[in-house]
């Protein structure tokens, strides 16, 4: 790799190696000094990106372009370009939507909930995870708009004062709740993320040589001066926001699950959905954070900040949430039969043995069996293994949403209307395009903002040091 590492002229503060605790492992490896932390993180912004970044960016951007073309084609021609039919009104579109919303869960979970629980290891990953959240919610937000038959009228689902008499939105519709839940979540996540960025932006402001950049950083760092008073207020607000964001982590996916839970289609009509969806979302979100962090530490040479220990911790969360999801699967099957409702029983049988059984079993393998490998410490600490498993989990979680949506719809109450769904090239391209959008934005984030929260990392730098 030809990634040039520029050593700044600053003299690193020498660290006495004997200061490292023999009992505990430090969170940040390499026994960094404050200055080294600043240098390591800020050089990502100052230096030219390496070949790895460019390759990743090119691939992502190509996917984004392909997705944009497919989306334009859909919007100009009609939803008929997709594989939907009179029986199956949603498939890839809402699957992708729920998938991305799920991905968007880990960020706020890591920054807010782990912050409240005083989990210090979160500091290395929270910034990227929050950025991932915002980008994933943006990707998710795309789908409810383009899945509409007339997407140019999407603003009709917003309750805004209008000149159509007393025409308002339907507050009984879960799609309207979705709008509120997601926009609230996005707003809080954005504010939370931005607030956390302020001290680091100030650092960047103070360091950068480019006048233009300094101007921008100056505006966005809100006149941060690092005084005690500033820090004190900052931390109070951060805590309050963390407390505010925490319930949203639970509410947003609960409400997304209402799209299904409040309907009457067997396979959708289920009270287990809110907790099941939240667990699934955290599950998939953490898997995605792991995938991304493994890429970032490799691509950006941040192995000392994002350590195997971080990954291991996230593996444990994944194992827990994966097991919750497994229990949900088992409960669904049990309740399906326990209900005595022939329609419910049929849906279960049809999922397990029907024409989409391959999708169901992909889902079960990836979501129920694969995370169980994290019981083994060797697996939890082997980076390539974590990388592969985290990708498998996200494949499984995508299929979970596909199974819920398509297998429930394709055979519901009246056998005369039963049908099959096969995606078209357009739909697959739009899905790939959403990944293109996700990675393009994430790679840009890595270049434009400090990818690791310097101020917070400095706070835990002394952890496990005497």
């Amino acid at each position, binding site marked *: 790799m030809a990634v040039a590492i520029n050593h700044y002229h600053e003299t690193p503060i020498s660290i006495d190696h004997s200061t490292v605790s023999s009992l505990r492992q430090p969170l940040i490896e390499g026994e960094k000094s404050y200055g080294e932390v600043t240098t390591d993180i800020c050089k990502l912004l100052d230096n030219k990106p390496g070949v790895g970044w460019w390759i990743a960016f090119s691939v992502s951007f190509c996917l984004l372009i392909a997705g944009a073309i497919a989306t334009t084609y859909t919007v100009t*021609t*009609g*939803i*008929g370009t997709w*594989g*939907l*039919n*009179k*029986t*199956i*009104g*949603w498939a890839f579109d809402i699957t992708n939507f729920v998938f991305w919303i799920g991905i968007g869960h880990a960020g706020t979970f890591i920054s807010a909930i782990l912050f409240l629980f005083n989990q210090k290891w979160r500091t290395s990953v929270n910034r990227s995870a929050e950025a991932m959240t915002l980008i994933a919610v943006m990707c998710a937000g795309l789908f*409810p708009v383009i*899945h*509409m*038959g*007339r*997407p140019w*009228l*999407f603003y*009709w*689902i917003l309750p805004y004062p209008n000149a159509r008499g007393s*025409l*308002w*939105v*339907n507050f*009984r*519709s*879960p*799609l*309207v709740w979705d*709008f509120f839940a997601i926009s609230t979540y996005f707003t809080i996540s954005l504010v939370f993320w931005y607030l956390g960025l302020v001290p680091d932006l100030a650092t960047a402001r103070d360091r950068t040589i480019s006048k233009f950049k300094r101007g921008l950083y100056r505006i966005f760092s809100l006149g941060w001066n690092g005084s005690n008073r500033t820090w004190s207020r900052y931390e109070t607000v951060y805590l309050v926001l963390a407390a505010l964001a925490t319930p949203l982590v639970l509410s947003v996916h609960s409400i997304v699950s209402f*799209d299904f839970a*409040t*309907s*009457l*289609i067997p396979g959708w009509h289920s009270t287990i959905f809110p907790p099941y969806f939240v667990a699934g979302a955290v599950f998939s979100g953490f898997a995605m954070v792991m995938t991304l962090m493994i890429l970032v530490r490799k691509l950006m040479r941040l192995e000392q900040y994002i350590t195997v220990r971080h990954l291991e911790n996230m593996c444990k969360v994944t194992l827990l949430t994966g097991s919750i999801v497994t229990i949900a699967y088992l409960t669904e099957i049990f309740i399906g039969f326990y209900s005595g409702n*022939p329609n419910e029983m*049929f849906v279960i*049988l*049809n999922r397990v*043995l*029907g*024409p989409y059984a391959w999708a169901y079993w992909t889902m079960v393998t990836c979501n129920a069996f694969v995370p169980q490998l994290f019981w083994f410490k060797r697996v939890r600490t082997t980076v390539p293994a974590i990388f592969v498993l985290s990708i498998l989990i996200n494949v499984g979680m995508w299929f979970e949403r596909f199974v819920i949506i398509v297998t429930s*719809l394709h*055979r*519901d*109450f*009246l*056998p*005369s*209307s*039963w*049908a*099959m769904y096969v995606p078209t090239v357009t739909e697959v391209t739009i899905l790939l395009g959403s990944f293109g959008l996700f990675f393009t934005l994430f790679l840009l984030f890595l270049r434009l903002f400090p990818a690791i929260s310097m101020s917070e990392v400095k706070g835990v730098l002394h952890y496990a040091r005497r």
Partner: protein
Amino acid sequence: MSGDKLWKLFQQQHVDDATQLVNIESAGAPRAGVSRRTFIEMIGFSAAALAFSSCRAPEQKIIPFLKQPVEFTPGVASWFASTCGGCGAGCGVLVKVRDGRPIKIEGNPEHPLNAGGLCAVAHGMVFGLYDSDRLRQPLIASKPATWEDVDRQIIDILAATRKTGEKVRVLTGTINSPASLETVSKFLTQFKDGKHVMYEAVSAAAIREAHSRTHKTTSIPQYRIDKAKLVVSFGADFLGTWIAPTQHSRGYSTARDLSGGSREMSRDNMSRHVQFESLMSLTGSNADTRIKVSPSEETGALLLLAKLTASKETSALAALDESSISSRVREAVHRTANELLELRGESLVISGSNDIDVQCVVNVINQALGNYGKTLDLNAPSQQNQGVDRETAELVRDMNAGEVGALIISGVNPAYDYYASEEFTTALAKVPLKISLNPALDETSRLVDYVCPPHHFLEAWDDAEPVRGVFSLNQPTIAPLFQTRGYQESLLGWTGDRRPFYDVLRQWWKDNLFTRQKAHATFDEFWDHSLRDGFAVVQTQPSEQAAFVAGALSESVEKLKPRSADRENKLAALLYEKIALRDGAHANNPWLHELPDPISKITWDNYACVSPALAERFEIEEGRIVLISNEKTSIELPAHIQPGQHDDCVAIALGYGRTSAGKAGDAIGANAYPLVRFDNGTFQYQATGITLEKTPARVQLASTQLHQTLDGRPLIKEFTLDDYLKEHKGEEQSKESKSIWKDYQYGEHKWAMVVDLNACIGCSACILSCQGENNVPVVGKDEVRRQREMHWIRLDRYMLGPDDNPTVAYQPVMCNQCDNASCESVCPVLATVHSSEGLNMQVYNRCVGTRYCENNCPYKVRRFNWFENKHPDPIANLALNPDVTVRSRGVMEKCTFCVQRIEEAKIHARNEGRNIRDGEIQTACQQSCPTRAISFGDLVDVDSRVGKLKHDERDYILLEEVNLRPQISYLAKVRRSTNVNLSDQAGKESDDKLKIVGRPEA
């Protein structure tokens, strides 16, 4: 830019707009003449003038009638009684004309034959009128010409023909219009050897000929299904396609009606229906007992039945060997024979065969049972299928021999549908003068010298006598769209008679009918009255009851015996008509192509139906292309696996594979007419000794229903009559609401519907009636393959029981207009809302197309506009109903209970200061239902028919457990003494549910 130049411009040009003034200003101050102040004033004035002129709405000139015609209000429809020209059955219709355009055909409720019912084909006729592939002017040698040229040339050639004395032939389809027949014969009398030959591609000539043998009268009796307590049919699809299906369906449902009479009445009154057949027909699917027989067994069973019921009429049957018939069929025949003997004079035996010998045997049975004069009417015989196969064949022979000097073809297409079309084509080339009076440049018209396109029946004067004594009038409802001319006027014109056919028609009615009636004093009164009614019933002299002649019977029996004994495993091809496309004459009609066949649920194609066992034997899957050939011909078709069909036959629909039908109808399916045989004087729609070969190709048939069974779900309730009488005490059902929520409160109206599954025979006419009324788009074969057909009402068809002889159940499903509508709660933009009259309304211009409502609808009746349905054909667009919005892309649509009709009725009632009468509003599907299966009305009106039916003991709600409280309920089907036990089946099906689940669809 110099100021001088602009100044020059200002002087030279006329200052008439503000643009130049602006230019001047931009160039600096004007030097003289106009002061700054004036200049600004001018600018201001001009700008204001421009702004005000752009404020005006675009100008549209609406020119009112200078003199408004009487009884004509723009925007209000007028209805004209007329006669359907879709086939020979001559059903009475009412044509809805809006602003000078016929937009809908409905059954004439007062017409004695169809009594308000109509078939699918009739509904498609509106589209046929606006078919832009119709010829727009006459053609000479396929080049556009004027009528003057055509007439001059034809008259010259005909004059020459008259001199040579060559044969002149007029070849038409069934013409039962007495005035037209007179015109044709008048045309022919000017020639030495002129003859009118009637040809039907799907003929019933054998019945006529058989009656000429057995009853000395060359006619087809009128079958009074309504009077028969027991109908035994041998392969006759009398509810779907045979002779006069709408009339038969009406009679059938009258004889089986359970919704009116008391319980004890129904036991006696409900007729019974036994069907012996090889393929699965619409009629067979409705039978109380359907006995699957091989094509040869069918003959054997008929002979055995004759032996058991009519042995005293002829001795020829005594020696019949029963052993050639399988014991299952033998037993069924014996049972049927006993029942028939009990119901002498109240039963009816019919056969769909076009074999004279078979029909002779049928006649003997009916004669022996004393059914003539009761369920078969020879006094008022049917004139609905007049084709004489023998004469057509003779004509082709004469043509081939070069004896025919002039051939005038009208309304038939033998170059496509004659059994030996190549022979016809070569023979036609030998005729010196060939004239076609067909409406389009079809296969036959392409081969002739002159094409003289006639009017569509909605543009023309005509009459019909479909059943002797019933005279039906046909009046134009629009001025001819193109330069066409009634075929009668063409023929008259060539005799030098330049009268319009209207005069001829009136004259005929004056001379022949007016004199025979007594109700009206003047002819004008009689004419106006008949025109308003659409028909006149004029009693004819009852001819004497034709005497029975048993003489020729033994010969027939001897001929049939070897055929029935032929039990080798030989495959036969059975050629049948589908309810929509029939014989293929209307093949350019996309409505008819997209109407799913009620049995196969397949659209836009014909196919080779094979039984599941046969498919297994040949290792054929659904959609596999197979090659069907005999020594004469071979055709390639996709296979369709049809449960209930006999293993010894392949069933193929006629009417497909047109090569010159027009843009909608070309190259759809394959032409099966070459498999028709001409044998023993009639066309035989059965080809024996065929071979079936599998090819490597496979296609996906465009089916609208991919899953055929109920999988043990209680969606269709069906009883045997005995169970029904036993279990139901005839008490009214009480349906109390047990909800903790308050029910919807309805004030003035609550619209509701009841669908009687016992009456519904699956004819699918409702689907096309709805399509025409509600501007439902046609989406084409590929979109149907993607399961995106748009029909607002669909006909669910389930096969119950074993694959080899299933019971078939039909269920029309449209929007159930639920009280607790699951679609309403999920729409984010309130595009689907509940009305104060119980309707679930779809607001098209509010819909953003999330499809959430469609997902959440358990009945799956909502239809989404996947693409912009372009309406590129300005002529076809004339068929659109202006009362109903044409939906745009990305919008959900569905059944509205024909809300436009409800509103129209409300306006009428309000204008007249009264309440809406029960039955005043008829939805489109209800109006045309030949069996009166659909009732619609107001539940607030306690005396309404629909309200009473809701308390019927057979009433049930589809998916009641979901508690959507729909306004539609169904009345359970009742079959007489079938062995069907649905609960048994449910158990059996759940056993093999896993197998069904695993079976991939499509």
